């Protein structure tokens, strides 16, 4: 089952720390957001392979937006 990784806060994409095809463990950062001078990782909710990154560095994302999809 693919699973969407959602941003838990509103912020600007600071860094993309994984790419499609990467295997991630639960809790690994998939991307890092910057909000109000804080860097906040968006973590994989479970282990899996990254299917798609849906954002680009510098892009603003709202809380609840999908930032990546896991296979």
């Amino acid at each position: 089952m693919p699973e969407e990784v959602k941003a838990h806060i509103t912020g600007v994409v600071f860094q993309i720390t994984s790419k499609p095809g990467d295997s991630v463990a639960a809790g690994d950062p998939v991307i890092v957001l910057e909000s109000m001078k804080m860097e906040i990782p968006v973590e994989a909710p479970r282990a899996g392979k990254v299917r798609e990154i849906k954002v680009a560095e510098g892009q603003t994302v709202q809380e609840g937006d999908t930032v990546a999809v896991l296979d």
Partner: protein
Amino acid sequence: MIDSVLVANRGEIARRVLRAARAMGIRSIAVYSEADAGWPHVRDADEAVAIGPAPARESYLSIEHILDAARRTGARAVHPGYGFLSENWRFAKACEEAGLVFVGPSWQVIQQMGDKVGARAHMQRAGVPIVPGSDGPVASLEEAARVASRIGYPLMLKAAAGGGGIGMVRVADESGLAQAYATAERRARAAFGSSALFIERYLIEPRHIEVQVFGDGRGQVVHLHERDCSIQRRHQKVVEESPAPRLSAGLKQRLTAAAVTGARAVQYTNAGTMEFIVQGEEFYFLEMNTRLQVEHPVTEEVTGLDIVQAQLLVASGEPLPWRQEDIVQRGAAIECRIYAEDPAKNFMPSPGTLTRWVPPSGPGIRVESGVAEGCQVSVHYDPLLAKLVAAGATRDEAIARMARALEAFVVEGLRTAIPFHRRVLASAAFREGRTHTQMVEEGAFNA
């Protein structure tokens, strides 16, 4: 006297400086990014200049854009506020080279105190106690291990070029050193472009006490007493007060004397803060903030003095407006930082639109606010919305006024730290003045 000042900042501190300038008849100039058009600080100034898009590095952190705004408006002086370019010596130097008065210390002192390792060494030579640690940046993990075995665990790895708690890593014991060292190096490089680290002993349940100083650049330095800023989250202050509760007269005397000695040793000009960490009756120099401090209002409330107006006077070449014996600490004052962040979610940022904003008022209540109803609080800047300050004849009166003001403060549209502050004010630890810098992390004020 300078006849005009450009305020290179935004939010509540820009408003604070603009207000002081206007009260002194100095033409005031604001700058703003695209995200801040129409914000209160823009309306407060005599003139306002757009300096670029929302991201700070293209606006409030752009030396070029700010100097250009100064040229276009014929500003005589620049006040940097805090944060942004305030402790960037290159900015202060660029102001000087452009013929502008920089409201603050010389760029040389900013550079000297900005190098945290060099500053410690300098203060140690001046006779100010420092936390046991490495004499400078450590060259390798092997050297770190040698220093660690000399000073003992637990300890802290800190970025030599850092500040504000960014990039600090705590090490509990020898087995954790190698991994912590790698983490700290990586963070330091990412945040400051330099992976140089230094080591300090990690103190258990310390207090953060700082001393407001003011110098004329010719060796004359006064202090405006102390502030206790022990309640911190992520190594950043959230509640500050003056006087520091339960501070013995002897320790207070040694702290203020050390602060004056340290500031004198660098021929300090204008307002600055000597920060100390206190454990029991011992204190150690932490760092010097070469700028106006967020929490300066608590000092103003207990001394009755206007620090920002004094900054503008001294920057104009006037002598210090006070003698040490004129500076008396009366009553008590507390400040709560009203951050747009969610205390229920570990103080995560909470940007959004302020749909309702009703700050409290009343005797002894002062609100330094950067926002107004309808403002869109963006992800681009510091989350500080306002500072709520309560003063009273006694600490108990200040606490009672602050507790009532926090109950009355209405904010809708985003989450704020107000519920957290209410719990702090209600806690026995705060009421008894038994706080330390690790309490928030330990969950002492959790709901």
